[in-house]
């Protein structure tokens, strides 16, 4: 990609934002290399978070699992697994970091507002305004088997519940007026009378009546992230979110189309179209030369897609158990089987497996690929590969054309996987003027350049209650 004149672009002053996603699940994290660290030792989390902070990242991001993944009723054993509760881990990290945002993925189906809103609020206070909440939904009974509420939601109700959850959470976060708590040791009352408001809410999903127990943090509310890619998910984000953790960051045209779609939905929702940051998830593989970067990519992919993982991924596509086959041999001769999705990991099949398999067969035949090579080349793809300067030019182009606001980076190695990005890519981005050279604010909302929380901009009746 050629370097463009920074002033001859739609957003000449745009800045790139980085988050880091300590994933702790699925095959993208390499566990077989000598340098693969612990997925649960607090030192691993501290190391990644502190490296990201050294690299002036906006956020450290944790996912959530509510049931160990299964394939055909058996626990999936090929990938990293076993991770901490996100908010608990982040509260510990709040004590050993100073600036970086701390984002928890937490489910709105299998939590209750009184509890989760308070936990997020506590994280926000302990980190002095650095908390974020990635709102996710679940609808299936498979996950519900671990919870009191059991059962499941109708698919259509999952975002209804999420939206109502968020409304109650915001009411709780707004329940204390600013300055409610006395600032003087001689005060006659700990909090000023009439400044803390009870929240009563009766809706289709929640019927609660409670006193909020925490004041607003330095950033008002935790920053709201959202990752759903369906039309419903995008509309939910356009109405409620501050950041979208999207899946559209690998290809410029796809990223731009997604960003334009989100901006359109924002306008429909009555918000300014720059009110939301788009941070696609990505992997970044860096080499000193283009050849070295490609060579590293080949190593990374072969570590990620082991023979058994290749059979597992292909098995999901074919809908049949391929374990025991030869991953280095040809593609299976059987036709794919279409099965029902029960919500477990192993049931996540593609929409039209027959067409995909036909395409795989044609390409594998043309290139002489084994099944494992086909999975590496044609299976789920992610990421950017290149030299620090090549990637910096590319990312500057993305952000200056409004295709992304940054990336949520998943390191393929923990805990050292961010080192190259911080040591090599960040300086190259800074040279191009698209990346901060110091933190200028103290809260996550500051880092992302976001406006105040949505409920603070509207008439009081907008506040749920």
């Amino acid at each position, binding site marked *: 990609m050629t370097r463009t004149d920074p002033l001859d672009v739609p957003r000449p002053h745009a800045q790139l934002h980085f988050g880091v996603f300590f994933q702790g699940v699925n095959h993208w994290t390499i566990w077989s290399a000598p340098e693969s660290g612990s997925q649960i030792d607090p030192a691993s989390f501290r190391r990644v978070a502190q490296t990201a902070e050294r690299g002036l990242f906006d956020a450290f991001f944790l996912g959530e699992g509510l049931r160990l993944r299964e394939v055909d009723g058996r626990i999936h054993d090929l990938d*990293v697994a076993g991770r901490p509760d996100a908010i608990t881990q982040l509260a510990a990290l709040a004590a050993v970091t100073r600036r970086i945002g701390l984002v928890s993925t937490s489910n709105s189906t299998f939590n209750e507002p*009184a509890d989760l809103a308070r936990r997020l609020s506590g994280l926000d206070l302990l980190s002095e305004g650095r908390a974020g909440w990635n709102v996710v939904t679940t609808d299936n009974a498979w996950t519900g088997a671990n919870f009191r509420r059991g059962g499941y939601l109708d698919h259509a109700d999952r975002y209804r519940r999420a939206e109502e959850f968020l409304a109650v959470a915001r009411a709780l976060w707004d329940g204390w007026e600013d300055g409610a708590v006395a600032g003087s040791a001689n005060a006659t009352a700990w909090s000023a009378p009439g400044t803390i408001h009870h929240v009563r809410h009766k809706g289709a999903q929640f019927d609660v009546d409670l*006193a909020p127990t925490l004041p607003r943090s330095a950033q008002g509310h935790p920053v709201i992230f959202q990752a759903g890619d369906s039309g419903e998910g995008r509309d939910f984000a356009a109405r409620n979110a501050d950041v979208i953790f999207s899946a559209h960051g690998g290809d410029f045209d796809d990223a731009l189309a997604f960003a334009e779609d989100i901006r359109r939905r924002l306008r429909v929702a009555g918000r300014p179209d720059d009110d939301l940051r788009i941070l696609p998830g990505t992997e970044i593989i860096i080499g000193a030369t283009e050849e070295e970067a490609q060579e590293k990519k080949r190593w990374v992919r072969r570590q990620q897609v082991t023979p058994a993982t290749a059979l597992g991924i292909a098995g999901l596509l074919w809908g049949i158990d391929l374990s025991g086959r030869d991953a280095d041999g040809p593609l299976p001769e059987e036709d794919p089987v279409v099965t029902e999705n029960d919500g477990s990991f192993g049931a996540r099949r593609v929409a039209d497996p027959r067409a995909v398999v036909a395409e795989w067969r044609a390409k594998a035949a043309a290139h002489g690929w084994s099944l494992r090579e086909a999975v590496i080349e044609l299976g789920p793809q992610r990421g950017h590969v290149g030299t620090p300067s090549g990637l910096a030019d590319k990312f500057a182009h993305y952000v200056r054309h409004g295709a992304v606001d940054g990336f949520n980076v998943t390191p393929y190695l923990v805990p050292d996987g961010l080192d190259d990005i911080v040591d090599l890519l960040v300086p190259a981005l800074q040279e191009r003027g698209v990346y901060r050279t110091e933190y200028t604010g103290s809260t996550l909302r500051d880092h992302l350049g976001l406006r105040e929380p949505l409920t603070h901009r509207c008439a009081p009746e907008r506040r749920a209650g």
Partner: protein
Amino acid sequence: MSGPALHLAVEIDGDGAHPAAWRRAAHAPDLLLSPRRVATLATTAENAGFTLITLDDGVLPPGTSPNPVGRIGAVERAAFAAASTSTIGVAPVVPVTYAEPFHVSGQLASLDHVSAGRAGWVVAQEERPEAARAWGRPLVAEADAWARESRDGVEVVRALWDSWEDDAVIRSVATSRYLDRDRLHYIDFTGETYAVKGPAIVPRPPQGQLVVLGSPADGAAGLLDVALVGGGDLPAVATAAASAGAPRVFAEVEVALDTPGAAAGERVADLGRHAPWTDRGRLRHIGPVERLVALLADLSRHVDGVRLHPLVLDEDLPVLSRLVLPALSERRLVARPLPGTSLRATLGLERPANRFAATAVQEGAR
């Protein structure tokens, strides 16, 4: 009992045990809900030589106006405190009357990971009907139902801690397997009000099982590692301790000490003008340091430890730190935790075998 030396725990919630404690606090009210407050109390307690801090909690506000009505969740404070310290134990209060045991188990296991094996759990019950309204769940009313929820909750949380065997992560490059799925276990718990499948998301805690503390009068009796016993005088405490039925027993003791600025009685009377210090049937010491040291020496013949509830943290914790713990230490009456030691080990409790691993071995032997 673990030995002659006492383990000392201190409750660090809010500004102290008295509902009006905030009026004598050394800081303005709006600094209570801050990270600095949590870190300062935790490091002060660690430096003083306490074995454990506990952090009270519940879904409802901690008090009513004009007293403090705000509180950060205990698990979050405990995680922050753990990352701010290196040897002291940290035990949040977490009721399971309405909470999801699956979440509670994961949160507490994670606390044990972030503290490298220094975590405990004080089981409590949410008995006020307002708690049900806050959670939006059907009311759990009366002692039998509270006991059922506590018993089931502790059972599920403990089973989930065992649902990963210690060596479930095998990293077998030859077979491409990260996990040995035979070392992961569905708990398949079915109680009266709910069922939980398992296994946990969080690997087994470093201690195997966290140290579980609670009142033997509540529903989790029989599932506790440490019984917290009340009693208004020494014979009552001794009787309660003798029948507590837990591996370790801690006595609950409320303390108001003479400080350089004011006598203990004056301080209690001062706060009494604003609110009563409700008698919860616990030992209460109001007076000089020497008499507290003597009381603790007496208690050391009946219990393994004492949990102190200071009247005003900012006034009493410094006196405990400067005078009481050193005096006990001189007489070898207090056990300071050693660096790198788990809370279980500090308390002389064994690291428990995994209930599921034991089953697997038996089946293998057949």
